[in-house]
């Protein structure tokens, strides 16, 4: 009996693990990574976004499922002493720009309107696929925003417009109504970031912010060679945390909430999980940051016994391979046939008129020479 109990317990454990394995209900992962500020001194925001991009790509989400929006080009900025690079650690330890960055929205294309259109899917029909968030109701989406906001409740885009927390909440509600996500993780690294997720009201949203209302999110370290601050603290420690994650790791959201405590970040990171249906302890990091494919191992065998058709019909024509191509027609070109001919009525009318005029001017005496 003890043995069976042990066995049952063991089975239950496996089942529980299996249950956990299949419980999240998502089949694909998307990421929308947005940097909203431009100008050289906001280098760190671009570096933030690119480091999250790098982690997300490393953990398996392909470029086709990432919408990367960068409001300014730091790698090719004329003030960058090391062109084509964006560093996240000082002394140029880590270049997050890499060789295969695909930026989908760049420069002035990063606007509040475009961001909301990407989220809600209401883009003009001519928008290419790389600029669309083609998620469905089994998608887990990671949304990362970084930028500046001087006051409570909004995020500045490009120094000229802002997105408010109400707009963002409404956009997420539209996404929920249109079944555009299964679960959504929203991370924001900006001053008073927690104000941005205060207004959410749609289900299955989890939000993290780098600072509470009334606090400033601070930057981490300047690099003296480049001359600007390279990263913000929260994202810096987030990056360090994510560097330890690999696709098979079982770290869950509670570990993510512990990233960057007040001692390191100076601001207090906040999070919000009340709208999320599952327990955060059960949510794997790779549910959002990676693209873990569910692999089902089966022990069945399948018999591939359909007969193969032998290649018996060979070309028996005397034409050689080259002649079969249309190239042959071009090489041995006959003079072009004119396919269009003017209508007969036209020709008749025109020449009758010409003849009439001729005889009118030169007199009808020529007629008898012709007939």
């Amino acid at each position, binding site marked *: 009996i003890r043995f069976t109990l042990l066995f049952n317990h063991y089975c239950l454990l496996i089942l529980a693990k299996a249950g956990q394995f299949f419980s999240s209900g998502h089949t694909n992962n998307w990421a929308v990574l947005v940097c909203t500020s431009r100008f050289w001194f906001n280098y760190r925001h671009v570096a933030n976004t690119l480091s999250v991009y790098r982690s997300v790509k490393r953990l398996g989400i392909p470029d086709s499922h990432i919408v990367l929006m960068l409001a300014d080009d730091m790698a090719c900025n004329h003030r960058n002493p090391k062109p084509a690079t964006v560093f996240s650690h000082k002394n140029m330890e880590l270049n997050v720009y890499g060789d295969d960055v695909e930026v989908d929205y760049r420069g002035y294309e990063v606007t509040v309107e475009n961001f909301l259109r990407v989220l809600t899917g209401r883009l003009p029909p001519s928008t290419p696929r790389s600029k669309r968030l083609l998620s469905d109701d089994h998608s887990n989406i990671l949304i990362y925003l970084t930028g500046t906001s001087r006051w409570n409740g909004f995020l500045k885009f490009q120094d000229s417009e802002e997105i408010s927390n109400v707009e963002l909440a409404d956009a997420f509600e539209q996404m929920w109504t249109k079944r555009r996500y299964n679960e959504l993780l929203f991370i924001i690294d900006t001053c008073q970031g927690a104000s941005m997720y205060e207004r959410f009201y749609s289900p299955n949203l989890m939000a993290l912010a780098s600072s509470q209302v009334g606090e400033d999110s601070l930057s981490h370290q300047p690099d003296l060679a480049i001359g600007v601050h390279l990263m913000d603290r929260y994202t810096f420690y987030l990056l360090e945390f994510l560097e330890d994650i690999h696709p098979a790791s079982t770290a869950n959201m509670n570990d993510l909430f512990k990233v960057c405590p007040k001692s390191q970040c100076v601001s207090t990171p906040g999070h919000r999980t009340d709208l999320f249906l599952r327990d955060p302890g059960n949510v794997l990091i790779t549910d959002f940051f990676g693209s873990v494919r569910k692999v089902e191992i089966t022990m069945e065998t399948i018999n591939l016994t359909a007969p193969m058709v032998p290649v018996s019909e060979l070309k028996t024509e005397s034409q050689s391979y080259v002649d079969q191509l249309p190239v042959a027609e071009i090489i041995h070109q006959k003079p072009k046939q*004119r*396919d269009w001919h*003017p*209508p007969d009525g*036209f020709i008749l*009318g*025109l020449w009758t008129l010409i003849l009439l*005029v001729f005889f009118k*001017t030169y007199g009808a005496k020529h007629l008898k020479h012709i007939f």
Partner: protein
Amino acid sequence: MAAPLTLLLIVAVTIRAVLFRSSLAELIPERVEVVSPLNAWKRVVEGLALLDLGVSPYAGDVFHETPLIIYFFHFVIDYAEIVFMVMGCVFLLQFRKQKYALEAERYPLDCLELIRTPKEMYYIPLKVAMFYLLNPFTILSCVAKSTCGLNNAVIALFILCTVKGSSLMSAIFLALATYQSIYPLTLFAPALLYLLQRLYIPVNWQRSSFWLFTTQYTFMYLGSLCVMVCLSFFLLSSWDFLSSVYGFILSVPDLTPNIGLFWYFFAEMFEHFRLFFICVFQINVFFYTIPLSIKLKEHPIFLIFMQIAIISIFKSYPTVGDIALYMAFLPAWNHLYRFLRNIFLVSVVLLACSALFPVLWHLWIYAGSANSNFYYAITLLFNVAQILLVSDYFYAYLRREHHLTHGLYLKRKDGSEATLVLK
């Protein structure tokens, strides 16, 4: 007379043949000064190719030639170079008829030197032919196979028929020229005046013979125009060509730079004012007809020259071929040489601008170190020089007429020498 003409013909054909075979033949049809969207050869080829594929050539913005051109080139497209050379030679025919000025002996004696001697007149056709065939502008236009040569030939035939006095043929050729591009409409007035003069019908509003002839000529002209337009309808069974050809000429949608004045203005204009300015610019071409006809009603041939010059300067898509047309007539007014005041300035400016056109084009488009303002400045200067040339000849002509009636050496009432001032 036949021998020098033949020699000239041979020389001209040789030059054109040599250029056709050289590498310049690929370069010249690309130049915007020589071809315009209305008469570019590659558009003709494109239109005919579209027709072979079963699509109307007027679909899209490629082809802006009239249907009769389609018919004409349908058969001769493989021999295009020869056709264009022949067109140039047709022009020669024009001046077989010599135009003697209708001068009577009632002029004062000291004007003898002003009257042209028959000996001079004898050589004018040769000079005109030389001016046309050996003009670099014409040669460029021919090598580029621009249908401007065809337009010029039709206008030349029209002038020939007018001068010969056959009103039917003149009406028909004028209708053909108008059908090709709308602007030769303004040549209606001088043709009418010349024919009236030839038939000794005075231009008097009260005389019935004047009205009779005018209505006759108008009907012939309008009738042939209608016949041509209807015939073109039957070629392709559609009226598309009206908006593609005449709509294109009048509303100037294509703003590729050329040597005219339209492109720069309309490139910068706000949409709100575009219609107004199109009307202003187009009226500018037709506007000078009436005042000039009133002033020059006894001299219709000169009026034809003035009109052609005005058309060439102010039309919506001018090319150097149009300029060659009126420059060919300059030898006919050799006798005005002594009264021309700006000949040095005009010739230098024209030469300099012709040389600067390709330079500034290169700087603007290829080197990127200039911009459209540079090219526009040269266009402006070129057109100003042309206007100066035309107005200079006008002044000279009027002055000669004045001298013919009042004597060459003008004296005031008290006997001292007077000078003539154009007011």
